[in-house]
């Protein structure tokens, strides 16, 4: 809210000076209307219309302000203009900076309020003017040289002179309707024309990104010459097999020799004549075959132009069409190695690079294109673009599937690919219903076996602890134990004896009579003293039986 108020206040302050002269002046002069700026290349024009034609002797003056400046400066070329347009082309204006213009009408001391033009960046507002064109005729081609728009000292396009691209429209003079459109370099040839025909053409320059279209040049007309006897070679193409690159072409004449030349493609972008930059390929100066094998290491990876010339006796043909090729001798892509395996209803495909793949430039990520088909039908059922191994799910059981793949270099402009790999076939396994379950079952079983084993073992140990097995000591120990003195010694001051005594008292199920109790007490004492002389283990059996009836116990003890 505060910010809004501030903004409003600012607007008021800023607006005040504009309001005052109009209000305070009260003059009759009115500001010019429909003020427009037109920029074509380096020509800046300001146009406007008078608001009141009846007032005579009115002149117009304009001022400008660059971004970041506080004061207004007289616009050169637009001071005291009597007409309704002025040329303000000047070196003072920075074509990349935002500029604001304002104009007013003047008569003697009287002035109209300023009329401001929406601020603009000259470069962004500028239109690309028509390029200058020079033509030269051949029998079946026209050589065209284009000078970039603007003058040589152009400030507007100084930074873009080699960014321009050119579009050309060409037609024969006789049939104006049949137009051909081509994109050309500043210096190139228009091919596939008829001899002795008048052609007319127009060229415009444009910037590709950001898109900016220029104006068409005036129409130029030229007639092609008489057809020469020795035609130039045709259909140039580059053939690259393994690591050997070669240029091939067609020729109509026999017994001719050829010479091949090349040019760096980047030179085509730079305006000017580069005809002296063409170089001959060593070994391809006088060829009798229609093929030139590039010597290794002459063409590093790059974009090149090639042209071929035929010679027969003393006469030489014109140069063939200049063809652009992307040569990448270092990057020969070899086919991948594939393996396929059928695993429960799906096919696992493994892709690997060939071992001798040293020639591939590691700079390029490879993509693989795999084609899958059934052996029976031969019709392709699937094409897969992949970077890694993959799985083809839901394949039919007991069917032979075949696969082949090739490596592609992932690139937007230049597509290079290897040949297809060897075909690999694999029969899918018959459908076994619960394979998953079987595996899961085995897993569970494997997991459970040790668990069960250990838990059983633990349980057994517990049982043993609670119910220890009865064991008799070895006879030699028994001999020892039978001796009284030793018995006393062993059980001297043991607390267990009283506990045992207590247990036996409680265990006794029949409440004895008074007489018996007395007797029992005595007996118990006896028993106590006797048993306490025994080792626990030894007396186990006796204890057990003794607890059943006191009578028996007594007998046993005594």
């Amino acid at each position, binding site marked *: 809210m505060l910010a809004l108020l501030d903004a409003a206040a600012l607007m008021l302050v800023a607006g005040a000076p504009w309001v005052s002269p109009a209000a305070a002046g009260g003059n009759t002069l009115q500001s010019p209307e429909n003020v427009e700026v037109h920029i074509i290349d380096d020509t800046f024009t300001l146009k406007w219309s008078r608001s009141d034609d009846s007032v005579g002797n009115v002149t117009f003056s304009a001022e400008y302000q660059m971004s970041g400046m506080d004061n207004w400066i007289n616009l050169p070329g637009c001071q005291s203009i009597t007409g309704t347009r002025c040329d303000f082309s000047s070196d003072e204006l920075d074509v990349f900076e935002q500029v604001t213009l304002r104009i007013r009408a003047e008569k003697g001391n009287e002035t109209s309020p300023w009329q401001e033009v929406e601020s603009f960046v000259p470069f962004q507002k500028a239109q690309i003017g028509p390029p200058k064109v020079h033509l030269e005729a051949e029998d079946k081609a026209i050589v065209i040289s284009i000078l970039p728009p603007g003058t040589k000292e152009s400030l507007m396009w100084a*930074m*873009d*002179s080699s960014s321009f691209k050119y579009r050309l429209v060409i037609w024969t003079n006789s049939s104006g309707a049949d137009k051909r459109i081509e994109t050309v370099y500043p210096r190139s040839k228009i091919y596939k024309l008829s001899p002795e025909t008048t052609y007319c053409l127009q060229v415009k320059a444009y910037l590709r990104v*950001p898109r900016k279209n220029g104006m068409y040049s005036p129409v130029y007309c030229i007639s092609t010459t008489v057809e020469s006897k020795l035609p130039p070679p045709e259909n140039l193409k580059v053939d690259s097999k393994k690591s050997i690159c070669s240029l091939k072409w067609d020729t109509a004449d026999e017994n001719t020799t050829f010479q091949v030349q090349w040019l760096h493609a980047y030179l085509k972008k*730079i305006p000017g004549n580069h005809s002296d930059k063409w170089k001959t390929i060593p070994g391809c100066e006088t060829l009798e075959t229609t093929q030139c094998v590039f010597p290794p290491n002459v063409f590093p990876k790059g974009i090149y132009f090639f042209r071929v010339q035929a010679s027969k006796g003393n006469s030489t043909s014109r140069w063939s069409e200049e063809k652009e090729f992307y040569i990448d001798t270092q990057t020969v892509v070899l086919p991948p190695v594939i393996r396929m395996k059928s695993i429960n209803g799906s096919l696992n495909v493994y892709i690997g690079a060939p071992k001798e793949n040293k020639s591939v430039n590691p*700079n390029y*990520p490879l993509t693989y294109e795999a084609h899958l088909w059934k052996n029976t039908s031969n019709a392709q059922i699937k094409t897969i673009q992949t970077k890694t191994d993959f799985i083809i799910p839901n394949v039919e059981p007991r069917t032979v599937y075949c696969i082949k793949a090739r490596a592609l270099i992932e690139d937007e402009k230049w597509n290079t690919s290897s040949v297809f790999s060897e075909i690999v076939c694999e029969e899918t396994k018959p459908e076994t219903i619960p394979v998953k379950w079987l595996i899961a079952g085995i897993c569970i079983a494997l997991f459970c076996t040790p668990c069960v084993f250990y838990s059983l073992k633990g349980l057994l140990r517990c049982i043993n602890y609670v119910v220890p097995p009865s064991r008799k000591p070895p006879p030699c120990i028994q001999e020892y134990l039978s001796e009284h003195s030793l018995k006393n010694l062993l059980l001297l001051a043991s607390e267990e004896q009283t506990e045992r005594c207590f247990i036996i008292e409680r265990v006794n199920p029949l409440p004895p009579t008074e007489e018996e109790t007395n007797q029992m007490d005595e007996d118990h004492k006896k028993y106590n003293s006797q048993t306490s002389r025994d080792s626990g283990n030894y007396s186990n059996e006796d204890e057990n039986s003794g607890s059943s009836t006191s009578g028996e116990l007594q007998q046993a003890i005594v």
Partner: protein
Amino acid sequence: MISKHFLAFVFLLLASFTIVSRELKPVHFQQRRVNRESLKLLGTLPTSLIRQCLPHRENFLLPQKAINPPRCSRGHAAAVLHEMLQQIFNLFGADQSLSSWDESLVEKFLVELHQQLERVETVMGLEADQKSHTLGTENIRLQVKMYFRRIHNYLENQKYSSCAWLLVRVEINRCLFFVFRLTEKLSN
């Protein structure tokens, strides 16, 4: 001799460190080639000349914010990248006063640069149809153009002296470092 190789090494090291093992695109790879050629070009400079040229140094005011923004859209990065490549190509390609340079090295640099430019233009040409990418990038392009105009003006004022060219070469190398990072952003 050692220092210049060391410089090249450090640059290459820096460049290679910035590569993260992600899905890398050809633009990024090609830029590495461009930078490598640029470094080779710089590597031919004699050390004595470098010392001699130090007083002629100039701040070309590289538009850091435009070139190396903390966060930037794909369109932004592509626009800056394209404009930079284009301008470097203009600078090195158009001028015929490079005779004192090792021509084959300049040629190699331009070959790689040209390929990269073609590549970027192809990518951008496809995207330009969508229009959204070019919005708001005009000002960035202007900033880059102005920066290169300062370089052109400097060369002109220095009458294309070998010192001036040397310093421009160093500056361009610096530029390419940022360009490399832009391609990295683009390829992600």
